[in-house]
């Protein structure tokens, strides 16, 4: 089976072709055309063990809110978008980003306890926009850019889910 996988890490993102093939009866892996000495097995629902040229790796996987795959390998983290043959064409290229305007998303589920700005206010980059309380800690959500609070969707006392849009800054 052949997969097109876009792997993103702190260093950036890159597309790869990963092929799980059989060569005269032996299973094998080919990445970007290179044949690898690899042995992989799913040891538990969210964990895959990979032995690559004798090196033993353990990777924990989960589906992120965005539908991407989150991968943890010890201290190292990646996110991946996998397109398998079935989904090869006609695939969605990912949600379009609203250029310029920044969506302020709730980083965790919680309760909006205080609004620090109003719609229309001018804000500096790093300035506090609102305070979300979760797990008894007050967390100030700051503006990612200098600009104007275009819309403020969150209200004081409102419960919000992770990833919910709180405000727009342009």
């Amino acid at each position, binding site marked *: 089976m052949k997969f097109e996988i876009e792997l993103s890490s702190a260093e950036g993102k890159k597309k790869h072709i990963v092929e799980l093939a059989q060569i005269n009866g032996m299973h094998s892996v080919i990445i970007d055309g290179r044949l690898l000495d690899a042995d992989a097995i799913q040891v538990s629902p969210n964990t895959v063990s990979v032995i690559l040229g004798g090196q033993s790796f353990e990777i924990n996987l989960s589906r992120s809110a965005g539908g991407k795959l989150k991968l943890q390998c010890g*201290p190292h983290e990646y996110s991946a978008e996998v397109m398998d043959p079935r989904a090869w064409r006609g695939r969605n290229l990912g949600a379009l980003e609203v250029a310029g305007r920044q969506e302020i998303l709730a980083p965790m589920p919680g309760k909006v306890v205080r609004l620090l700005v109003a719609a229309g206010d001018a804000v500096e980059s790093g300035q506090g926009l609102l305070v979300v309380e979760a*797990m008894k800690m007050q967390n100030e959500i700051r503006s990612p850019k200098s600009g104007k609070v275009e819309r403020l969707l969150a209200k004081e006392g409102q419960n919000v889910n992770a990833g919910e849009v709180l405000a727009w800054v342009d």
Partner: protein
Amino acid sequence: MFKKILIANRGEIAVRVLRACRELGIQTVAVYSEVDRASLHVRLAAEAYPIGPAASRDSYLRIDKLMDVAKKSGCDALHPGYGFLAENPALPRACADSGVTFIGPSAEAMEAMGSKTAGKQLARRAEVPTVPGTSEPIEKPEEAQELARSMDYPIVLKAIAGGGGKGMRVVPNDTAFASAWRDAASEALNAFGDPRVFVEKYLPAPRHIEIQIFADSHGRCVSLGERECSIQRRHQKVVEEAPSTVITPDLRRKMGEAAVRLARAGGYVNAGTVEFLVDADLNFYFLEVNTRLQVEHPVTEQVTGLDLVKLQIAIAAGHRLPFAWESITPRGHAMEVRLYAEDPDNNFFPSPGKILARHAPTGPGIRLDEGVYEGWTVPMDYDPLLSKLIAWGNSREETISRLRRALNEYSITGIRTNVGLFRRILSDQEFLRGEIHTNWLDELLARPRPPAPEPHPGTEEAALIAAAVWHSANANGHVPASTDANVGPSRWKMDGRLRQMDHMP
């Protein structure tokens, strides 16, 4: 001894107390809010009763409901754990009214020592050195600001009812005062139902070192030595150890005596902790008394070999302390890290949610006090503490190497945890040399993060392979192997299992 104990708490400490009861042959009764029905402490308890909605003030802070459960289930004692009502004198009073023994100090002792202000007054009387500042709550912000100016900044605002850094703010200068006051008061209100705060001179770069004391109801009061708790983030302890690298036997004795003096002055009975600030010249100042079991009590247990929760229960049952301090010989070195559901890469924002996978370390020198399990959903309504990982070793070096080893084995999928923070702390040269203070961690985090260690060659390929394998096994809603009684091995093991190209090494 008691027949049945009500555990008026949740999470890892409820589990901890429950285990002590089990070992003493005492029955256990747990309580739970609506979001805690599936929590570990409920699963492990012999009896469990619901006490209302998620919000603490409607459940874990409801004394009336706790008393109802105690009566209904026939408990003869109650253990408060830490946090929630543990330092609220109304709880021991309610217990007394219902003929239930409160496992902890008397309401009077709590009042005499519990609040920061009362504790300070007592300390002065007991000739225990204190930090300059007011000891009374201040109602008006203007008044407090006046005082702050007169004392010179930096000052620190602290909640009267405070603990664990909640409702606490350092104020660097006059302009920052107003917002700091607002935050401290509202956080205090949320956390303790009491918005009152007071003002104290702020000591730069002190160590936080605390003394564990134990007093029985027969007049014996002893010190079990110190815990070094200077590694804090936003005044919240995250790493604790014993012994401290700076405490000399002489200083240990002095601090122990001061702590015992204070406890006696307050007529204190049961377990308590006297917190001190220690400056660069090893002068120590009384900070506050915690009239309860501490989160970090396992550190003392690992070096003394004592079970502090069992001791608390025995003392509440009227037993004598089964030892003299002289007979306690601490051994080796112990260190605890607090695993929180929070994201160190994103402002330490809380990260509640479902734990999809979890691999917990075991083996020599490793103790895990946990309140979570794989498949459990961490609620957003409470403190983000998941588990405490405690290591013991013959030396500080061995202890740290065991903690590192355990942290490398520890993985949790589905939510974010602060495991990465400890990797960074435990490899920092200053930390390894023991050169720490209460601001050390915040300063470390303010510094640019050191470049992440190069991933081992092949890590990226391994990740790609894992993604492909996992995708092909799970994409089409396939049930992975280990999760259901009825299905066979995972698809990959069935028809797609990758094998070594050459079978011989």
